[in-house]
């Protein structure tokens, strides 16, 4: 909008002939776009219409392919509900419509959020259409090669049939991740500080870190599985080392790059040696520490899933492996969807912590 106005003004001052046209354009521009209520409502409609079409397809498109549609009895709050996979799928679509409508109405009052919502409308519409096409190709006509590409309703069926078991596996994965990654962060930041602060430690430890750091953590699995008391500890160990080296490396770099002047300023103001580490070097290294945590996190996900696939009695990776054996590819997809959501959520949380911790840097990042 602002650049538009600037351009208009530029046109105005450049040629008096277009003055009237320019003014008109400006007046209509005020009501155009996301500011206009009609426009916004149309965008809201566009957002949900994709999902409405998907519901329509699920309800009215003839089921040509031979797929068994089972009833699942769900009981909660003393009520028992019989659901087919299509009912569950439609329920999910309705939930999406409700969520997006509520988001739309909530963001209507805020200029920035309103703009963003309008911008996302096309993508969300395409998402709905994509689901509808997937439903036709995977479930209704089943012309995708089966059983590798089941429809969305079949993926949701996995949650109906295996719900409790999937939750157990999610909890197993989360426990592994939490134990391994938190230890990895603590050890990584700790060693990083020692390496960055003490030249002697740097001399002896840094080369070791540099060489071992490039080896993918899962390569250590044979040792981990034989030398450690149980498989859980072994997987924790693998996640720890993959996070540890990466974070230590970047923490050390951040500590070492602290400007000499910052230390001098702090010393003159009365800082002790301990103070210089805690209140100068570590805050200065924070952006690097978070870079390390971010990339270590991605590697930790990989290590987590791989070690679950190769020798854990539970977890989402284990569930995928187990489903693969039974050719239940809809369950594999169901687990992948959960991973996508779960790992995105973990990334989101880390992102929020990072944004809060580094808020002093925000302007620097914007520029």
């Amino acid at each position: 909008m602002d650049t538009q106005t600037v351009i208009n003004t530029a046109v105005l001052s450049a040629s008096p002939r277009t003055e009237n046209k320019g003014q008109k354009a400006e007046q209509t521009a005020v009501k155009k776009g996301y500011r206009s209520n009609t426009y916004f409502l149309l965008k809201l409609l566009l957002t949900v219409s994709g999902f409405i079409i998907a519901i329509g397809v699920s309800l009215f498109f003839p089921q040509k392919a031979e797929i068994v549609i089972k009833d699942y009895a769900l009981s909660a709050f003393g009520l028992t509900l019989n659901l087919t996979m299509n009912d569950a799928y439609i329920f999910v679509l309705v939930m999406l419509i409700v969520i997006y409508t509520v988001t739309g109405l909530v963001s209507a009052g805020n200029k920035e959020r309103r703009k963003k919502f309008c911008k996302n409308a096309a993508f969300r519409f395409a998402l709905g259409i994509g689901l509808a096409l997937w439903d036709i190709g995977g479930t209704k006509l089943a012309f995708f090669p089966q059983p590798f590409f089941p429809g969305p309703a079949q993926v949701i069926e996995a949650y109906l049939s295996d719900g409790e078991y999937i939750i157990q596996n999610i909890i197993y994965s989360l426990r592994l991740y939490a134990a391994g990654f938190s230890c990895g962060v603590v050890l990584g930041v700790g060693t990083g500080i020692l390496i960055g602060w003490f030249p002697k430690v740097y001399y002896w430890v840094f080369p070791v870190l540099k060489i071992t750091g490039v080896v993918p953590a899962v390569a250590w699995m044979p040792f981990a599985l034989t030398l450690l008391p149980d498989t859980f500890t072994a997987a924790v160990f693998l996640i720890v080392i993959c996070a540890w080296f990466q974070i230590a490396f970047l923490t050390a770099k951040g500590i070492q790059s602290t400007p000499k002047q910052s230390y001098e300023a702090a010393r003159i103001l009365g800082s002790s040696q301990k103070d210089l580490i805690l209140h100068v070097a570590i805050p200065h290294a924070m952006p690097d520490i978070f870079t390390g945590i971010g990339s270590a996190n991605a590697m930790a996900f990989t290590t987590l899933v791989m070690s679950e696939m190769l020798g854990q009695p539970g977890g989402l990776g284990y569930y995928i492996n187990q489903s693969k054996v039974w050719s239940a590819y809809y369950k594999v997809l169901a687990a992948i969807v959960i991973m996508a959501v779960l790992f995105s959520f973990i990334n989101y949380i880390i992102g929020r912590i990072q944004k809060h911790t580094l808020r002093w840097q925000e302007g620097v990042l914007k520029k």
Partner: protein
Amino acid sequence: MSSSIKISGVDRVYTDTDGVSVEALRGIDLDIREGEFISLIGPSGCGKTTLLRLIAGLDKPQAGELTIDGSKITGVGPERGYVFQQGSLFPWLDIEKNISYGLRARGVLKTKKEKVGEYISMVGLDGFEKSYPHQISGGMAQRVAIARALINEPKALLLDEPMGALDSFTRSDLQDKLLELWKKEGTTMILVTHDIDEAIYLSDRIVIMTPRPGKISKIIDVDLPRPRHRGGVEFLEMRRQILEFFRLAQALPQPEYNI
């Protein structure tokens, strides 16, 4: 609070990695009186910053001695505040926390908490307590740096070209602020600068230094009444004298008359 600083026979030689040594300072003798505003001025390489770092205790001389109120300077101490040229604020702390850093580091923040607000107002930064250094201008940042140094109530404040990176309007603003603080606190001020006008406007005495080897060539007493007028006749005369000393002022060429 103020103090006298005695510098006697100080030498400082730097040797670089090729073994070439540079005499940054040779045979420096200087007595700085209590509560005095003194400027060290000279071209780059004359050792003025080196001398200031020696007084701060950030560096040690090879020969000679520096004392403050009779006791030898062996390292940094809270009785000597320091303001760097620029960029010495901690970017991860907001203005309030930057200013209170010294109190916290010395473990007296709890007992002297009310001083923080007082020093923020003193440098005219009310309302910016929660801003971060990247959000404020260069002039404001230097005022924060000055307040941060003064909150420790130093006997002497060492200023290393604190206004070197500022535009001329902000600079004269900050010079007046500095004079105001000096009058109020009575701190001994030692200013390193390359700006002759700034030195005359602020100082009781100007120490002129020359390079290779870095030494004191001349000390000028500035006995102009305060407040000083930057365009005054005596001011300009003193400026001319200093310029002449550095051979910067050349006689204007005689106009040619061709009749």
